[in-house]
C-alpha cells in the first residue's frame, strides 16, 4: 500500500531542518519521510474500520514536522514510524463517504473510565493519548498503529468518523477538520456578542477562523492581517471588516479600537504601544513575531488565543503581566457551548459552516501522492504562490480498488 512514512532518523531530521530553513517544504526531499509500500494497518478491534482517503490535506503542523521545526514536546506523544495526514475525507469499505475527526481520545483507545476531558466531550484535551489499545499519538497521522491520511488506507475508530451528505464535495469535506479548529477558537474567545477581535494570519486557519467568527458573532468587529492579495480578498469575503498587512497591525488596531498610541522615541506619531487594544487576538501563525504582535495589540485584561501551533518562541512577557492579558491555546475541537447555551459537536458545526461559507474554495491545489515533494513545497509556500489549502488526491490510486 502506497504511503508517505515518517521515521525517527536524527541525521535526516537535521538535514530536513537545514533544507527547510532555506526553502520551506524542502525537508520532504532530504528528511526522514519517504514514499513506501506499507502494510495495511491491523484493526485493533471490531470498532475500527479501514478508511480509504479521497483527499487528504496538508496542514501547517505537518509542514513543521517535515521541515524539522516541530517542538520536542511531541516526541513522547507520537509513535514512529507514522504516516501523516489528519485532514481527511475518505470512503469506508462499504462505500460510505466520511470525514475523519482525527483526535485519538479515550474512546478510540478503548479506555474505561474515560478521562475527565473526554467525559466532558473535550476530546482534544484527552489526558491519555499515550495509553490504551494503540500506540502513542495525539491524532491519526501521528500514531504508528492507525496509519494516516497520506496513504491509500488507514485505520479509524468508528467514533472518529462522520458520514457526510452527498451534496458536500470532497473539496468541501477536506476542509471540515481545519474548519473545526477555527470554530473551536471562535467559540472560545470569551466575549459577548459585540467587541473587537484581531486575527493574525490569513492562511487556512486564519480564514476559517474569520469565517467562524463572522458566523457566530455577526456584530463583532474583525480585523485580520494578510500578507498576500488573495488572502486579503478571501478574508474580506469571509467576514473580516478590516484587513491589513502584518506590519500594519498596531496602527490598524489602534484605529479600530480608537485607542491612543505611545511612541518609544520622540517621534510622537509612531505606534509602539497602544493604550487600549483589541478585546481578543487570535494568533493563527504561532511565531515569536506573531505572539509579540498579539501581546502588543491586546487590551488590558484582554485575551490571546493561540490557534497556530507555536514551537519554541522568544517573547517578552512584560505586557502580559502588566496588562493582565490571558494567553490561552485552542487545540482541535470536541464539544462547544453555543451562545444560546446549547451544546454541539464541533465537527457538526464545522460541516455546516463549510457548506454555508463555501469553504471548498480554499482548496487551491491537489497532487497525487507520487508528487509529494511538489505538493509539500507548494503547501509550504502557499501564500506566496496564491494558494491556501493544498491536498493530496488519492481518488485515482489503483490500490484503492483492491482494498
Amino acid at each position, binding site marked *: 500500500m502506497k504511503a508517505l512514512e515518517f521515521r525517527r532518523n536524527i541525521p535526516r531530521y537535521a538535514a530536513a531542518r537545514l533544507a527547510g530553513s532555506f526553502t520551506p517544504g524542502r525537508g520532504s526531499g532530504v528528511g526522514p519521510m519517504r514514499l513506501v509500500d506499507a502494510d495495511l494497518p491491523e484493526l485493533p478491534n471490531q470498532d475500527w474500520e479501514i478508511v480509504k482517503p479521497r483527499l487528504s490535506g496538508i496542514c501547517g503542523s505537518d509542514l513543521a514536522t517535515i521541515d524539522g521545526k516541530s517542538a520536542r514536546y511531541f516526541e513522547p506523544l507520537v509513535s514512529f514510524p507514522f504516516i501523516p495526514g489528519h485532514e481527511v475525507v475518505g470512503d469506508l469499505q462499504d462505500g460510505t463517504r466520511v470525514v475523519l475527526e482525527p483526535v485519538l481520545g479515550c474512546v478510540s483507545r478503548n479506555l474505561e473510565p474515560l478521562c475527565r476531558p473526554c467525559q466532558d466531550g473535550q476530546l482534544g484535551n484527552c489526558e491519555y493519548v499515550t495509553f490504551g489499545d494503540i500506540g502513542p499519538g495525539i491524532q491519526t497521522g501521528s500514531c504508528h498503529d492507525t496509519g494516516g491520511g497520506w496513504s491509500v488506507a488507514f485505520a479509524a475508530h468508528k467514533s472518529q468518523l462522520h458520514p457526510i451528505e452527498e451534496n458536500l464535495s470532497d473539496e468541501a469535506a477536506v476542509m471540515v477538520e481545519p474548519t473545526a479548529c477555527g470554530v473551536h477558537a471562535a467559540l472560545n474567545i470569551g466575549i459577548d456578542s459585540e467587541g473587537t477581535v484581531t486575527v493574525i494570519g490569513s492562511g487556512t486557519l486564519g480564514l476559517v477562523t474569520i469565517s467562524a467568527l463572522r458566523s457566530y458573532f455577526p456584530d463583532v468587529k474583525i480585523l485580520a492581517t494578510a500578507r498576500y492579495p488573495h488572502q486579503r480578498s478571501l478574508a474580506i469575503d469571509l467576514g473580516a471588516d*478590516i*484587513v*491589513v*498587512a502584518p506590519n*500594519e497591525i498596531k*496602527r*490598524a488596531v*489602534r*484605529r479600530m479600537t*480608537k*485607542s*491612543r*498610541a505611545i*511612541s518609544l522615541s*520622540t*517621534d*510622537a*506619531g*509612531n505606534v509602539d504601544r497602544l493604550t487600549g487594544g483589541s478585546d481578543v487576538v487570535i494568533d493563527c501563525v504561532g511565531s515569536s513575531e506573531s505572539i509579540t504582535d498579539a501581546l502588543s495589540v491586546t487590551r488590558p485584561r484582554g485575551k490571546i488565543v493561540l490557534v497556530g501551533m507555536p514551537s519554541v518562541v522568544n517573547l517578552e512577557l512584560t505586557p502580559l503581566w502588566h496588562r493582565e492579558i490571558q494567553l490561552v491555546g485552542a487545540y482541535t475541537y470536541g464539544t462547544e457551548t453555543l451562545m444560546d447555551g446549547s451544546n454541539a459537536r464541533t465537527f457538526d458545526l464545522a460541516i455546516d459552516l463549510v457548506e454555508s461559507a463555501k469553504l471548498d474554495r480554499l482548496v487551491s491545489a491537489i497532487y497525487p501522492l507520487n508528487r509529494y515533494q511538489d505538493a509539500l513545497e507548494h503547501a509550504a509556500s502557499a501564500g506566496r504562490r496564491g494558494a491556501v489549502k493544498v491536498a493530496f488526491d488519492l481518488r485515482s490510486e489503483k490500490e484503492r480498488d483492491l482494498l
Partner: protein
Amino acid sequence: MKNEKNLAPRPGFVLDVDRTSPPVLFHHGDTFKLEKLPVGRSRVIYPPEPLEGLRDPDGAIRHALENPIGDSEPLSALLRPDMKLTIAFDDISLPLPPMRRPDIRQRIIEAVLDSAAEAGVDDVHLIAALAIHRRMTEDELRHAVGDRVYDAFAPSGRLYNHDAEDPDGMVVLGETPHGEDVQFSRRAAESDLVVYVNINLVSMDGGHKSTATGLSGYTGLRHHHNVHTMRNSTSFMDQENSELHASNWRMGKVIRDAGVKIFQIETTVNNNTFGRSGPLAVLQKREWEWSTRDRASFVAMQKGLDVMPSSARRQIFNAWEAPYEMTSVQAGEVEAVHKVTTENVYQQQIVEVEGQTDILTMGLPYISPYNVNSVMNPILVMCLGLGYFFNMYRGKPLVREGGVVIMSHPTPWEFHSVHHPSYIDFFEQVLADTTDPIEIERKYEKQFAEDEWYIHLYRNSYAYHGVHPFYMWYWGSHALEHLGRVIIVGGDSSAVQRLGFQSASTLPDALEMASDVVGPQPTITHMKNPPIFLADVK
C-alpha cells in the same frame, strides 16, 4: 503699491520641441532628470522670468497700511488703546520654499506692531493661521515673524499657533445660505480688529480664504474641503470658476456680518525661486540658454546628489531658502485687496497656451505646501501633481479629458511620523481599500477626523490633523475624474500601485504606456514648473 521700475523680464514661453531642442530638465523629487521629448508633437511651457521686486518693501508696506483699498480706513485710524487686536498670518505652507530672511510676514507684522504701539494698543495676539496644518515650531515661527517679535510675544503666550480643536478656543459664527457652518477662532472673533498678513504665492491663496479657512477647523472646513467642491472648482486657481472660493466668500460674508472687522494685508512675490545666480540658478534658466558653466554646475550637482543618501539630499534642499522678492503689497477691505493681489499674481505667473494636450508631463520637485522640513510622502506626491500642478490653469485643463498625466518623482513609501501620522494610516488602510474619493469621503473621513489620538497629536505635537490626508486626496479629485490614466516615472512601484497609478521606469516607457489610452503619436505638453506658472488655456 507696485514697483514702477520695469526691466522687462521675459514673459512665459511655449517651446515647440524640434530636433535642435536640448533635453528638458525635469524635477524628480530631490534629484533631476534631463529628458528628450518626442520631436514634432511636444511642447514645453516655461514660466515667466521673475519680475523685479519692490525697491523699498518696508516703505511700500507703510504706504499700503495708510492707503487702504476698498471700504476701509487706514490702519492707524482703526487702532485705539483699549482695543483687542489680533494679527493672524499665513503659516509654514507659504511661500514655497521658505523665503530668505527677513520674511515678508516679519516686515509687515513689525510695521503693524509699530502702528499699534503708537496707538497705545496693549492687547495684541499673534496667531499662525494654520487651520488644521501642523503647528509651527519655534524656529519656524522665528523665521516667519522675526526674533524681535517672537521674543516680545511668545514667552507671554501672545504669539501662538491656531488650535482648531480647542473646545474653548473655537466658535461657530453662523451659517451661510448654503447651510455651511462658519467656525472661527474665538480670539479673532472677539477682537475689535483682525489684521491678516498674507503671502500670495498662487492665485488660490488669500481673500476670504485667509481667515475663513486659516482660522477655522473641521466643522467649517468640511463644507468646502470635500470632493464635490473640488470637482466643481475648475480650477481652484481660478477664483471666478472655483466653488472652493465661492464657499469661502460666503463664509467671509458671515464673518463680516457677525461683526468681525478684518484688515487684510496681501503681498505677492516674484518667481525668483532658485536665484538669478548661485548654486540652483540653473533650475530657472531655459535649457538652450545654459552656459558651459551652467552645464558644468548641473552635472556636478547631479553627480553629487546621485551619491548621497536621500536623507542627505533632503537635508540640503530643506535648507534652501528662496530669494523671493515682494512685488506688491496692498491692504484694506478683503475683497478689494484680493482683486488687486490676484492681478499681480497673474502678472507674474500667466502663460498663454493654445489648446489642450493628450499627455501632460510634470517633474515634481522635492517640496509641496505640506512637507516643509519634512518628507514628501506618496499622498503628497499625488496632491502636488494632480492637485496643484494639474489645477495650474485658467479656462480649461492643459490635458484633455481622458488624457494622461505623467509625473516624475521617486515617490518613496516613506512618511514623517511626527508630521503625518494619519497619512500613514490613510495610506495603509484607506488607499488599500479604495482610491475613489467619493467612497473615501463617505466611508472613512469622519473616523479620521474625530480620532482622539490624531487630535491629541495635532494639538500637542506637530502633526497635521487626522483628516488632512483626505483633503490632499480630494485636492486631486478633479484630475482623477478628468484623466484617463496617471503614470509615475521612477517611483517606488508598490507605493505607486497603492496610489492607484501605473509605474514606469523611464519617460519613454511611460509614453508608450500612455499610448494605450490616448492612441499613437499623441501630443505632449511638459510643465516646466517650478518656478510656478499658471496656464491660460485658450
